[in-house]
């Protein structure tokens, strides 16, 4: 004796948020039922385990039928099969495209390829996120990447329009796409202390300032790639460290400004040349794709770590970088003001964001 068939179809599609989350998290029907029983929904509604199982199966089936549409969220609004109120549609999309920070940290900057997908079981074990959920999140990244890769115009806006995502989520996806496209290294041990939100912030800075779209959004090219011309120009900044006079002049200007304003002045003065060389070298190398990938690790190794070993607070760092940036403009022989501003603006905000334990 068994229930052979059991369906429930409402004119307005009924979807339980809680069950949806369980489905998204990759629970099997039986596990989901267990979770729901523990959640106490049974006592609340005088239901039996049997009822709960039937409901869960039914919901899971509905979600599976909807999944095809969720892959193209725009379709959800003008499909006829399910009558779903707009606020529900928005909820479905938002939750479907939501991801775990711990998961995204693992794949951030990696190529969104089949190879990476094969390694997801390791990621699943490491993060404790179910493989099914990992796969969904990975496929979401890849789907968004594929769609916006070919599109003109601002990245965040494209994502928001094509996937109907709320603004913060669209920004996060922009970061993920940007990282995947430029293949930034984020997995090194030294970078482990950084959260996804740190990287997402930096990505936002880079997208807004260093891409072609940042200067001219009418351009053919888009937000995903860094502005090649700018990277080329960055080489000119090398003069700041190759020209001995300029370097000394720069140092004295910065030191004058800093004197008396911080109690780590001595360390700053001692390290000036070192730090300056680090930052300018990063700039000069960015024209090579390989060095772009190491951008974050370089920032940590060349700047953040030395500062940290000198026990600088983030206020100190802020002070130092402000004067470091501004003083360069006073240098007589230094001509590359625009490039310098464009470069240092991003570097400063990235470093400040990354400067924590």
């Amino acid at each position, binding site marked *: 004796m068994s*229930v052979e068939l*059991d369906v*429930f179809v409402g004119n307005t599609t009924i979807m339980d948020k809680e069950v949806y989350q369980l489905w998204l998290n990759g629970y099997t029907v039986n596990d989901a039922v267990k979770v729901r029983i523990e959640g106490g929904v049974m006592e609340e509604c005088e239901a039996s385990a049997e009822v709960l199982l039937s409901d869960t199966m039914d919901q899971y089936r509905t979600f599976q039928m909807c999944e095809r549409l969720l892959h193209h969220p725009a379709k959800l609004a003008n499909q006829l099969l399910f009558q779903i109120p707009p606020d529900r549609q928005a909820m479905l999309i938002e939750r479907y495209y939501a991801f775990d920070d711990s998961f995204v940290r693992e794949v951030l900057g990696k190529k969104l390829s089949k190879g990476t997908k094969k390694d997801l079981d390791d990621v699943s074990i490491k993060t404790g996120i179910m493989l099914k959920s990992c796969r969904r999140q990975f496929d979401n990244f890849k789907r968004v990447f594929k769609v916006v890769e070919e599109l003109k115009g601002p990245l965040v806006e494209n994502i928001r329009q094509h996937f109907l995502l709320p603004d913060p989520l669209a920004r996060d996806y922009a970061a993920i796409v940007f990282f995947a496209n430029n293949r930034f290294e984020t997995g090194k041990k030294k970078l482990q202390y950084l959260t996804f939100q740190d990287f997402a912030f930096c990505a936002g800075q880079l997208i807004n300032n260093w891409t072609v779209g940042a200067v001219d959004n009418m351009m053919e090219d888009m937000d995903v790639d860094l502005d090649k011309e700018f990277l080329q120009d960055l080489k000119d900044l090398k003069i700041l460290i190759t020209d001995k006079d300029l370097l000394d002049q720069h140092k004295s200007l910065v030191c004058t400004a800093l004197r008396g304003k911080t109690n780590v002045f001595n360390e700053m003065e001692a390290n000036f040349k070192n730090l300056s060389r680090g930052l300018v070298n990063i700039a000069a190398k960015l024209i090579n794709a390989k060095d772009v990938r190491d951008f974050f690790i370089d920032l940590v190794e060349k700047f953040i770590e030395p500062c940290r070993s000198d026990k600088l607070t983030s206020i100190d760092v802020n002070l130092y970088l402000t004067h470091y940036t501004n003083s360069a403009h006073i240098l007589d022989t230094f001509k590359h003001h625009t490039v310098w501003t464009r470069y240092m603006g991003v570097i400063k905000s990235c470093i400040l964001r990354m400067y924590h334990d």
Partner: protein
Amino acid sequence: MPGKLKAKIVAGRHLPVMDRASDLTDAFVEVKFGNTTFKTDVYPKSLNPQWNSEWFKFEVDDEDLQDEPLQITVLDHDTYSANDAIGKVYIDIDPLLCSEAATVISGWLPIYDTIHGIRGEINVLVKVDLFNDLNRFRQSSCGVKFFCTTSIPRCYRAIMVHGFVEELVVNEDPEYQWIDRIRTPRASNEARQRLIFLMSGELQRKIGLKVLEMGGNAVVGYLQCFDLEGESGLVVRAIGTACTLEKISTFPATATHPSNSSPSKDMKEPVFGEEAPGVPLSSGPPTPLRAQTFSSFSPSKSYSRQSSSSDTELSLTPKTGMGSGGSAGKDAGPLKALLKQQTQSALEQREYPFFTLTVFPPGFLLHVGGVVSARSVKLLDRIHNPDEPETRDAWWEEIRQEIKSHAKSLGCHAVVGYSESTSICEEVCILSASGTAAILSSRFMQDGPLDTELRFEEVVSPGCGFCHIPYDELNIPFPAQLTYCYCCRRYKVPDVLFTTIDLPTEASVTGKGCLIQARLCRTKKKAQGEVNAMAISNLLPFLEYELHTQLMNKLKLRGMNALFGLRIQISVGETMLLGLASATGVYLTALPSPGGIQIVGKTPSDITYEQHISNMQKKINDTITKNKELYEINPPEVVEEIIGSPIPEPRQRSRLFRSHSESSDDVSEIDLSHGKKDAFVLEIDDTDAVEDIHALLTDSPTPAGFYSCNTEIMPGIQNWTSAIQMFTSVRVFRLNANLTNQGLNKIFSDLCENLLKSLYFKLRSMVPCCLCHLNFTVAIPEDELIQVAVTAVALSFDKVQTLENGKQSGEKTPIKAITENDEQLQFNLELNAETSSSSISPKGLSEVGSHPSARDRCSSWIEQLKLKAHTIRRGSVKTTSSMEKASPLPEGRSRSLRSNRSYSGSSVAVVKMTPLSFIPGAKIIKYLGIINMFFIRETSSLREEGGVSGFLHTFIAEVFAMVRAHVAALGGNAVVSYSMKECVFMENPNKNQAQCLINVSGDAVIFVRESELELTSVQPQSATTQTSNGGEGT
């Protein structure tokens, strides 16, 4: 050549990829009507083609317009091989043929394939130019309106109710033709779909012709069914009630509440529909119409095959013939009897005085006798000549005659809430018909008495009148216990009343109602032919008897005394029979309070046994008390003593009248009464009986916040919000072999109970809510399988009201104790005055109608008590007013408005669906035509589609989507009176195959929120166009 059909193919979207190489499709469209086909150009390499075709014009007879669907086929062009079909759209153009319905079909319609389901959508425009045709001998019946709704549609007024219309057409089932062996499943499915479309069209046209001949212009309560008889053919049959309807032109809501905006005298006017016509009834309907009906009614009854029989009927009843009609008015004598006779004579002239209506205009339904039903078991044989479906006709004729005679023996001349159904297994077919015997007012009958000034109003009060027995007290057709009516004290009422109709809106009810179901399984031996049919017809009486006993027990257990909307379904399988009776139990104030249930053991010697019995007795008593509390049943019992009326002895009696006949056997009637015992006694003589009682007690109560009923509305709940959720749920259960009757019963009962529980759980977010129109359908798709399908609607109502209600019921008892006389009547009176000044009760829902009855009683005998009561009443008025009336309604309404608004932003027009004839908080402003759709879906990759559940889930969702899309294309925003009449599911998991057939119907409408209505009432037209634009916009 009286019509020109025009179609334009605009665009397609979301098409499937047909060319794997390019991941695109080269789509074009074939538009076919009758034998004419047009094609669009190929729109290459696109999944969203823009054809923007010219207007394709078909010049056709209106007969064809009614019969044929417009057939649109989307294909993928292939240069080298045959073009692949993507899918089809069938468009029923019938709504365009009626001037009052839709004018254009325009919108996105799903492209449907019987193997793949929905494959994208197509945007089409369809129009019809109809030329006036004055041919008297025409075969078409364009312009006759059809309604599935079993009441007078909301924006119409009934001028006349003509009566029963029926028709059936038969054909060979394409699935069983020899050609089916060599054609693809798709071709076979499409042939079937098309055939059924054609047959429905033909059927509708033929019924329309009958209506025109009767002088009507509409069919209300149109019920169309399919009998898939397998080898022996395909039968499409329909019944309905012919009416002459008139559109109510006055738009604004001012006249919407006739009963509470008018003082008591107005109630007695022949008011129904929306507005008091102000015409004294004596003048009757407009004269031209009348003349017309007479001329068509008299000798030329050529439309009816059964004309001979009806003629004999006429000649057999000379005493009550036409003659008495004219002189009636002058005799001031025994009015009631005379009038009764007159209507009777009017009705007897009809072949079948049947009405498919379940809700009636006020004053139409006078008395209700009880349920009448008839069944017969037939052996199917091949239909040899589809043009003369004589055997099928004869079968139904036989059954209808039986029903008619049952009604007569209950002293009734009409049958209301009438319906017919079949159950087929292999070559055996059970035909069933049931209805409620009743006496109707002649008011809406064409040949009723001319002088209607003398009416029943003095005699019959609306609140209780329908409960008064129609039959002769001294000549009761069955043993019954009669008492004086508890409302008016003047007429006799039975102790229990079973009916198939909806609860009359004016009926006075105590407390709330609930769904009551009796479920039963009976095993039977496998057999063939005659033997099998005989075995089944021998089993049927027992099945019905037990179902009836169960119903009665459950009714008592809930402390109620009447059933409405009773529907008994008997399904036949190879090794078992399944019986499911559903009804809504209520406590009618007019009927006596039901006695308890008393259990009696057979072996009184054993002490432990007696203890066991007394335990059970206690449980039962507890349950009754609990139920009375739950359903708020506290009738004013004190009344009796004061008045000194005869104290009723609660006794049980059944009013279920039925018979069975195998082939042409004689009618056999079974007395279902439970003897003349003072309390309802259950004798426990064997283990079966113990089980039965256990089963009785294990019916789990509905969870808190839920109510359920299978009628349109639930008495005692008024302030519905606009939140409605229609749903269909299907379950199939596989049984083990070799189960006993007892075991089967339990499984079946659990299956239904669990299904209900699941529904409650699913809909928990809508609490407090009521599941209305719960319609269960059982089937035995194959051996050892039981299928249960439910379609219903969940309606939310306002919490505030319930809370207050709860408080009220608590407060009520002490008040009663103080007043000591019929205080309830008194404040109802007061209420009348109150509500008439404010008059804000939701249309159609309110009016449980306790005040009319109150008025009546008051006028007769309570006058002298009035003063005394008046002093006490004062304190209690405020609290009770909110209980009986929807006084906190303004808040409720604004709330519902808000929740409604949130829906409106969607890019696809929202289409509401409901099995009810109305939409809470909204007013239906236009009926766009009937929706009657038939779909077949088949798969040979069952596992890949998610198994049987996945397959059916998708299919039902697709059916909903197609219904919604067609309604939106007609410019509508809702389907009312929606029902899924057929859901035949077959599977073959070993072959990874499944097939399902679904037939749905309903009325497409445009509704406007009452709140919006108030805003736009100055310019009604703009409201109409706005809504229809909304529908077409996307």
